[in-house]
C-alpha cells in the first residue's frame, strides 16, 4: 500500500461553510494507506501549494489526494505542485468537494458525510494510481485557414505576419465572402469594397500566404501539431500562369446562368469571375453549365482568349499537406425563406431578402446600382422592411436572434434615403437591438435625420394588389392595424450556418451546436478554441456576427494559433487508452466508436503450439487519443483500458462509496 497524503481545502467559506472540515480530516486519517491528513484555507494559493510540496517530502508521500474544487479548475495547479516535489503528476487525485458537494447542499449534516465519502473514493483510487508519462510531439510550422471571408482573410494575414506559412482555402472562385457582396457597412457607412479589397490584395501578395481558391478540404486526420489534410483544388479550366485577367472570355461567352454573387437576381456568364475586384482575378468555367462540357460544342472562350489560357482538359488537383493548426472561418448563409409564404418571397419579384436588396445598391450589381423594382424597373416610392424573418422563431425558423439584422436594416434604410430621398421607408421590428459602439446613435440617425419610420410590430401578410404590394401589419405601440401600399418589401432573413457545416464539423471532429454553428470550447473563457486541440474558429461560422466582431475574433484565433505554432514540442494527453493485444479479439468495435480516429488495426504475432501466427488486433495511437474512454465501454473482451481510469480504479471508487452507506 503506497503512502497517501490527504489535503482538504476550505475554499474560504465555499467548502468550509457547509462541510465540517475537521470531521473530514479526521475520517481521512483512518482510510487505508493514509499517513497524513491536513487542511488549509486556500490550497491553490502559493502557501497552500508549498504545504503540499513540503509534506510530500517530509512524510515521504507516494500518492496525493486533494479535496478541493472541480478538477476542471485546479487539477493542473496541483499536478504541477506534486511534480515539483518530485512525484509523477498523475499520482494525484482530486475529490470535488465544492461543485459536487458544498455548493449543492445546504445542510452540513448531509454535506459532511458526502465529503467524507468522496475523499474515501479518491483515496481508494489513488492507491491504484500508476505513474504516467505524456508524449512530446512535433509541431508542423504551417497553418491552414478554411474560408476566405473577412474572418479568414484577417486570420490568415495575422498568422502570416507572425512569420508562419498559411494556406488559405476558399470554396468560391474568389475570396471576400459576404462582405464583398455588401455596399456600405454600418455603423460608419464606409464602402465595403474600399476597406475589404486592400486586404484581399494583401492576401494575394503576401509571401507567407498560399491562396487556394475554388478548393475544398476533403479529409483531415492527425492531431494538434500534425494534421494531415487532403485538399481538392477544382479545375478552373484556365491556366493561371497564362491568364492576364483581361476578361475577353466572359465578354464573349454566350451562356448565362443566375449569379450566386447577386443572390440569383442577375445573371453571370458560365466562364466568370464573381465580381470585378475578385482575388485572384482569374475566371473559372462552371463546367455544369458550360455548353462545351454539356453538349461538346462551343469553345468560344478558347478562340477569343488572347493569352491561350483556356484549358478544357485541366484536372482537379489533389493537395496533401501537414499543418500544425487549422482555423475554420466558413461564415454563414441567409436563411431560405420559402417557408414564409405570407410574405410572398419567391412568388413576387418585389419581395426581396436583405442580401438581395443590398445587391441593388452595388454599381456592379444586377441593376448597375439603380434601386428599382424588379417587376417594372421603376424606382420604389415606398419600401417596407420586415425584421426577424426566421430569427427568434421557434415555429418555422431559428430560436436565436441573428444579431446583425437590426443594424443592417437601419443601414439599408439610410442607403435608400440617400439614393432616393423622396422614397418612404418603413421598418417593422419586434425589438431594436443596437448594442455596439456607435450603433444606437446610428439607428437614431436613421429615425431622426433620415425620417425612417420605425413600426414596433409585425406584418401578417403581403397582398399583391395590382401593381403594388399591400402590406398588412400592426403597430403594437399604438395598437393600430396598418395597411401600407408598398413597392418593395425587404425581408431581414435569419443568418444560418453554411449548408455544408455539419459535414465540415464531421471532417474535423469539432462540435456544433443544435443549429450547426461550430461550438467554442468554453462560451466565456475559450471562445475561439474548439474541443479538438489545434482547431480554432472565427467569424460567423460560430454564431451570427458583424464585421467588427468577426475581425476581432479572427485576430484572437490567429493569436491562439500562433501560440501553438511557436512551440517546439507539444505535450500529449497522458491518460490515454491502451489495448492488451493478448486479450484483444480484433473485432475493432472500438475503432468504430473512437471520435478521434485514434484506433487502428495492426498485426500481432503470437506462438500457438509452436507455430508463429499473425492476427489482427486494435492499437491506440497515444498522440491522437484524448482519453474519452468510449472504446473501453465498447470492448467486449475488456482488453482496452484507459490509463488513469482503469476498471480496477473505478471499481475501487465505487466500492469505497458503497462502504459509506
Amino acid at each position, binding site marked *: 500500500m503506497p503512502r497517501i497524503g490527504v489535503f482538504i481545502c476550505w475554499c474560504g467559506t465555499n467548502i468550509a461553510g457547509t462541510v465540517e472540515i475537521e470531521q473530514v480530516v479526521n475520517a481521512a486519517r483512518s482510510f487505508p494507506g493514509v499517513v497524513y491528513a491536513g487542511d488549509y484555507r486556500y490550497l491553490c494559493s502559493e502557501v497552500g501549494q508549498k504545504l503540499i510540496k513540503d509534506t510530500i517530502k517530509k512524510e515521504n508521500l507516494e500518492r496525493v489526494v486533494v479535496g478541493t474544487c472541480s478538477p476542471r479548475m485546479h487539477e493542473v495547479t496541483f499536478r504541477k505542485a506534486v511534480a515539483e516535489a518530485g512525484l509523477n503528476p498523475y499520482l494525484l487525485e482530486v475529490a470535488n468537494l465544492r461543485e459536487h458537494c458544498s455548493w449543492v447542499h445546504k445542510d452540513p449534516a448531509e454535506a459532511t458525510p458526502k465529503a467524507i465519502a468522496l475523499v474515501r473514493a479518491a483515496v481508494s483510487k489513488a492507491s491504484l494510481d500508476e505513474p504516467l508519462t505524456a508524449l512530446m510531439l512535433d509541431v508542423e510550422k504551417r497553418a491552414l485557414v478554411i474560408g476566405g471571408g473577412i474572418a479568414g482573410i484577417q486570420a490568415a494575414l495575422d498568422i502570416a505576419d507572425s512569420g508562419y506559412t498559411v494556406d488559405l482555402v476558399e470554396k468560391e472562385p474568389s475570396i471576400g465572402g459576404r462582405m464583398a457582396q455588401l455596399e456600405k457597412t454600418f455603423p460608419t457607412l464606409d464602402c465595403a469594397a474600399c476597406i475589404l479589397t486592400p486586404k484581399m490584395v494583401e492576401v494575394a501578395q503576401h509571401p507567407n500566404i498560399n491562396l487556394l481558391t475554388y478548393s475544398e478540404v476533403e479529409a483531415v486526420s492527425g492531431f494538434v501539431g500534425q494534421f494531415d489534410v487532403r485538399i481538392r483544388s477544382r479545375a478552373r479550366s484556365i491556366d493561371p500562369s497564362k491568364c492576364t485577367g483581361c476578361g475577353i472570355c466572359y465578354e464573349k461567352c454566350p451562356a448565362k446562368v443566375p449569379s450566386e454573387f447577386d443572390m440569383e437576381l442577375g445573371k453571370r456568364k458560365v466562364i466568370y469571375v464573381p465580381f470585378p475586384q475578385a482575388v485572384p482575378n482569374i475566371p473559372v468555367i462552371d463546367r455544369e453549365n458550360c455548353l462545351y462540357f454539356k453538349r461538346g460544342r462551343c469553345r468560344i472562350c478558347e478562340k477569343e482568349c488572347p493569352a491561350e489560357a483556356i484549358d478544357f482538359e485541366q484536372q482537379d488537383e489533389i493537395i496533401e499537406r501537414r499543418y500544425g493548426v487549422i482555423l475554420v472561418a466558413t461564415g454563414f448563409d441567409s436563411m431560405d425563406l420559402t417557408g414564409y*409564404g*405570407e410574405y410572398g418571397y419567391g412568388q413576387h419579384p418585389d419581395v426581396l431578402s436583405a442580401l438581395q436588396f443590398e445587391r441593388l445598391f452595388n454599381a456592379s450589381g444586377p441593376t448597375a446600382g439603380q434601386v428599382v423594382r424588379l417587376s417594372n424597373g421603376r424606382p420604389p416610392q415606398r419600401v417596407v422592411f420586415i425584421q426577424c424573418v426566421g430569427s427568434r422563431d421557434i415555429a418555422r425558423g431559428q430560436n436565436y436572434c441573428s444579431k446583425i439584422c437590426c443594424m443592417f436594416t437601419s443601414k439599408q434604410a439610410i442607403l435608400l434615403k440617400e439614393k432616393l430621398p423622396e422614397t418612404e421607408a418603413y421598418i417593422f421590428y419586434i425589438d431594436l437591438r443596437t448594442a455596439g459602439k456607435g450603433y444606437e446613435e446610428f439607428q437614431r440617425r436613421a429615425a431622426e435625420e433620415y425620417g425612417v419610420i420605425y413600426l414596433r410590430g409585425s406584418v401578417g*401578410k403581403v397582398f*399583391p*394588389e*395590382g401593381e403594388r404590394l399591400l402590406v398588412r401589419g400592426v403597430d403594437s405601440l399604438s395598437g393600430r392595424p396598418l395597411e401600407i401600399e408598398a413597392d418593395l418589401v425587404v425581408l431581414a432573413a435569419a443568418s444560418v450556418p453554411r449548408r455544408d457545416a455539419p459535414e465540415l464539423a464531421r471532417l474535423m471532429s469539432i462540435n456544433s451546436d443544435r443549429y450547426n454553428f461550430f461550438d467554442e470550447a468554453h462560451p466565456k473563457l475559450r471562445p475561439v478554441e474548439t474541443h479538438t486541440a489545434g482547431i480554432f474558429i472565427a467569424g460567423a461560422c460560430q454564431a451570427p456576427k458583424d464585421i467588427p466582431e468577426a475581425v476581432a475574433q479572427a485576430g484572437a484565433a490567429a493569436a491562439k494559433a500562433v501560440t501553438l505554432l511557436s512551440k517546439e514540442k507539444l505535450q500529449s494527453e497522458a491518460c490515454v487508452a491502451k489495448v492488451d493485444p493478448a486479450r484483444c479479439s480484433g473485432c475493432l468495435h472500438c475503432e468504430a466508436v473512437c471520435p478521434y480516429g485514434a484506433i487502428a488495426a495492426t498485426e500481432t504475432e503470437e506462438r500457438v503450439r509452436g507455430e508463429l501466427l499473425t492476427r489482427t488486433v486494435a492499437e491506440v495511437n497515444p498522440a491522437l487519443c484524448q482519453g474519452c474512454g468510449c472504446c473501453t465501454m465498447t470492448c467486449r473482451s475488456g482488453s482496452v483500458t484507459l490509463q488513469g481510469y482503469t476498471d480496477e480504479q473505478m471499481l475501487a471508487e465505487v466500492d469505497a462509496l458503497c462502504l459509506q452507506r
Partner: protein
Amino acid sequence: MHYRYFPGCTLKTQAKEMEDTALAAASALGIELQELPEWQCCGAVFPLSDDELITLLSPVRTLAAAGGEPLVSLCAACHHVLKRAQEVIKRNPDTREKVTDFLEVDYAGEGRVLHFLEVLRDDLGFDRLKEQVSHPLAGRKIAAYYGCLLLRPAKEMQFDDPENPTIMEDLLRSLGAEVVSTAYRTECCGAYLSVTEEKVATATAEKIVHSARRAGAEALITACPLCRYNLENIGGPALPVYYFSELLAEALGVAALKEVARG
C-alpha cells in the same frame, strides 16, 4: 375506389347542390362514396379546449362508424372537425379512453380521413381526372377560395401549403379553366360571425370578393357552404360563387345528372 362518405347537415339542406354534383362526378370517375348509416352532425366546431369533451363525441362516433375504412367528406368544416378529432384520439390516450368509454366504441384513430379534393389529387390524380374531362371550362376565369378550415392548422390538417396552397388551382387547371390567383384566397370569410356580427363577416367577405374581381375573376369556387354564404352576402357588386364540385360535374358532362338527382 371505395370510400365511406359523411355528408354532414348542411349538405342535405342549404348545400344540396354540393352533394348532388359531387356524387354525380364521383360516380362518373369510378369513385364509390358509400354514405354512413344513421350519421349525425360532425360537431360543427372543433373543441379548442381540452376540457370540452362533449363536443368530441359526435365526430368520434362518426370516425368509429367508418370502421377503419377511408372516410370522405365534402364540407370543409366537417372535414376539419373529423380530421382534428382523429388527431386528438391518436395523440391523447387519456381523452381517447374517456370518449370511447362513454360512446362504448372501440376506436384508436385508425382509417384515413380525407376531403374529397384530396381523393381527387392523391388517389385519382389530376392527370387522370383531366383525361375524363369532356366539357373543358375553356376561357372561364375562376379564382379558388380556400378559407381557413382545410388548411389550418397545417400540422394537423396536412392538406396543402397553408400560405400558398395549389390543390384547387390544380383542380381548376385540370378542368380546363383559366386560373385567376387572388391574394385573399386563404383569408377568413368571417365564418359564423354572420350570425352575431354580420358587419364584421361582410367586411371580410367583401375584401375577398373584391380582390378576386380586381384580379379579373368571373367566379369563385369554395368547398364550404358557410364560405359561400358569406361570399354571396356582401355589399357592392358580387361574383358568382360555386362549389368546386359544381364545376367538376360540369366539366365531366354530368351536370344533367344533377338535375335528375334533384328531381
